[in-house]
């Protein structure tokens, strides 16, 4: 037989790969955000779509420039920068000026991601870094909320602000809360749309149910207890679940691969701590909403959680490895 084998590929096993890739995963997350984007356009009009587009484009542009300057391989095609942009846009108020949104997206990519070494190395969720920077820099623009489905931007308090002020009479109906017909950030109002996206991601295997389940579960339990003590009724916890950035935070931000724990037990601990922090900030803190800061704080704890939540290795009795 002729020797046809001079060019055989030599590689380590395995020689088969699941079809999953970084690009595909990012596409899946973007796809999962589509219902929230549609809800945003429906409730807050075309300007919200402009904000999303501007953020996505600025993020991709920032990533490209940063990688060029830092002489890294340009990886804008993996979709992670665009995703950061869209996620950031979805947590901005509908009336945000486009230029502020663009600055947010650029800082998310540069300060939140590229200075740490790019995808996989960042400590904090980049989109939330961008949001935190904007909140500190333009506090008024970042907390000016408008009514949904309104011809003109009419300033209006968010359900969380109303709850904080103990103004339960003016709260929208629970159905409006669930569908998203309330004032709030562009993509955060519709719990329904975000639940659809989250379910899609879990079904696709791109995120683990453990973080959203433990996060939302903890918030539900704690607010139920608070509600029971203060006689606020059984629907009180639902108002917490459906308001603010909790849904998008639980399904899209806290589940960020890079900044959440890799151990199974760690993911549960992460979610529970997020729930506790969010409820603490919402009920006792100075701010109305605590999702963004809870996630940023817990991002810092991720390496620690990973370290102390190692799984028991098959065939080992003690919990290994020990740390010196």
């Amino acid at each position: 037989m002729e020797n046809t084998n001079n060019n055989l590929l030599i590689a380590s096993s395995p020689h088969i790969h699941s079809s999953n890739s970084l690009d595909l995963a990012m596409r899946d997350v973007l796809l999962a955000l589509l219902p929230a984007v549609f809800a945003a356009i429906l409730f807050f009009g075309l300007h919200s779509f402009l904000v999303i587009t501007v953020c996505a484009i600025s993020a991709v542009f920032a990533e490209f420039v940063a990688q060029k300057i830092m002489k890294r391989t340009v990886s804008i095609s993996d979709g992670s920068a665009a995703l950061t942009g869209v996620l950031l846009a979805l947590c901005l108020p509908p009336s945000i000026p486009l230029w502020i949104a663009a600055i947010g997206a650029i800082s998310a990519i540069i300060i939140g991601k590229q200075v740490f070494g790019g995808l996989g190395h960042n400590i904090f969720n980049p989109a939330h870094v961008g949001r935190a920077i904007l909140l500190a820099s333009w506090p008024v623009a970042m907390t000016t909320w408008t009514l949904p489905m309104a011809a003109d931007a009419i300033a209006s308090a968010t359900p969380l602000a109303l709850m904080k002020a103990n103004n339960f009479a003016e709260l929208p109906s629970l159905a409006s809360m669930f569908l998203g017909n309330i004032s709030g950030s562009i993509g955060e109002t519709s719990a329904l749309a975000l639940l659809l996206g989250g379910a899609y991601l879990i079904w696709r295997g791109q995120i683990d149910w453990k973080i959203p389940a433990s996060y939302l579960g903890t918030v539900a339990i704690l607010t139920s207890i608070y509600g029971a003590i203060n006689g606020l009724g059984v629907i009180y916890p639902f108002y917490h679940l459906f308001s603010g950035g909790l849904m998008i935070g639980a399904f899209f931000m806290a589940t960020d691969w890079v900044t959440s724990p890799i151990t199974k037990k760690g993911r549960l601990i992460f979610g529970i701590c997020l729930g506790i922090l969010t409820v603490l900030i919402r009920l006792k803190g100075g701010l109305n909403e605590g999702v963004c800061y809870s996630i940023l704080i817990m991002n810092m704890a991720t390496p620690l959680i990973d370290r102390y939540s190692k799984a028991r290795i098959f065939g080992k009795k003690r919990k290994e490895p020990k740390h010196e």
Partner: protein
Amino acid sequence: MKKNSFFGGVHIDAHKEFTNTLSIITAPAPKTVYIPLSQHIGVPCQPIVKIGDEVKMGQMVGESRGFVSIPVHSSVSGRVTGIQRKPTANGRFVDCIVIQNDFEDTLYESIIATEEPDKLTAKEILEKITNSGVAGMGGATFPTHVKLSPPPDKNIEYIILNGIECEPFLTADHRILVERSEKILQGLIYLLKTQPLAKGLIAIEDNKPDAIQIFSRLLEKQQNISLVICPEKYPQGSEKQLIYACLEREVPAGGLPSDVGVIVQNVGTAAAITDAVEQNMPLIERVLTINGNGIAKPQNLSVRIGTLYSDLVELAGGFIASPSIVISGGLMMGTAVFTLDIPVTKGTSGILVFNDSSPFAKRERERDCARCAKCVDVCPMSLEPSSIAAYARKGRWEDAERFEAISCVECGSCAFVCPCQIPLVQYIRLAKQYITSKGQGPTNPLVK
């Protein structure tokens, strides 16, 4: 409710439809066979024939040296023409006894039917298995008689026959289960005789309904042997995972199945044991699957040990287009070989050939780890593959050891799911090498 399964693992397209209904074809013996003197884990054999010697089929040509060693036998009758170094599937070069086939297939004198094999004692059965050079045919080629001689303080309670065959594209064990079922059962009965306290289990994955049907019928009359049907999942055929699936017992880290009272044997090995016990026939042929989109006629072949891969490709109708990758064994754990000038050994379960149009002939660029933890979720040993790989990359062997790299069974599930295409198994192997050699290993290509 027992699930007959293990934790972790992945679901892989089995691609078995090309060959799982094709009966085993006995391949004609080649003109020349190359009998490797080391086909097993353990000490290589000492050649006991000289150039020019006439040898018969089944005659011992290399004798074992030491306990963890097994003899090798000629798979044809003919003349010894030399001793030649040949590459083997695991990358090592091994001395092979070259035998020119006279196509007479004259059997060696000792190969005669055993009178009343039912009456053999455990010791006699073990002796026949040892002399016949039987080694684990699932791929690891651990000498069978060593497995069957556990330390006296270990009580063997179960012997599990591994009929899982969870590697995609391989169907050899499946066909053996279907076509040689009685031989397998008989082999298990002999095995049980060597371990008087043991019960027998035959584990088959639920993707082989025909084999399950045959064995449920066969085992109706057996008091001491039962069938375990495992739901399809990779790597169910891995020894530790299989023991857990069947018995929910965990082989301790660094330990052996005998530590939990179990011996696992491949179904092909069981069939070979029947031949050894009843016919005194040494292990000189085995069934393998030749498959892949680069092969004209994929099939299950019964081939003589020492047949070159190139001969088998020719038998299977040659290549379709020029081959891009040739894998000895399965896609998940097999070795990509650099040549077809490799002889079949007792552990060759398959030859897979893929050409350019196959996804298996391509490798994607490795990216930085995105910490998605998919590898952690699928690892059947509950390791953190991404962490071990990261340490291996940096040459931090102590850290890799702390993360228990040594427990890795190299099943490949982690690398299979990795969206960043990191060759995790390769990194972990490197770490294992360093850990076992206590830093005396080869220079690390990754650390400058």
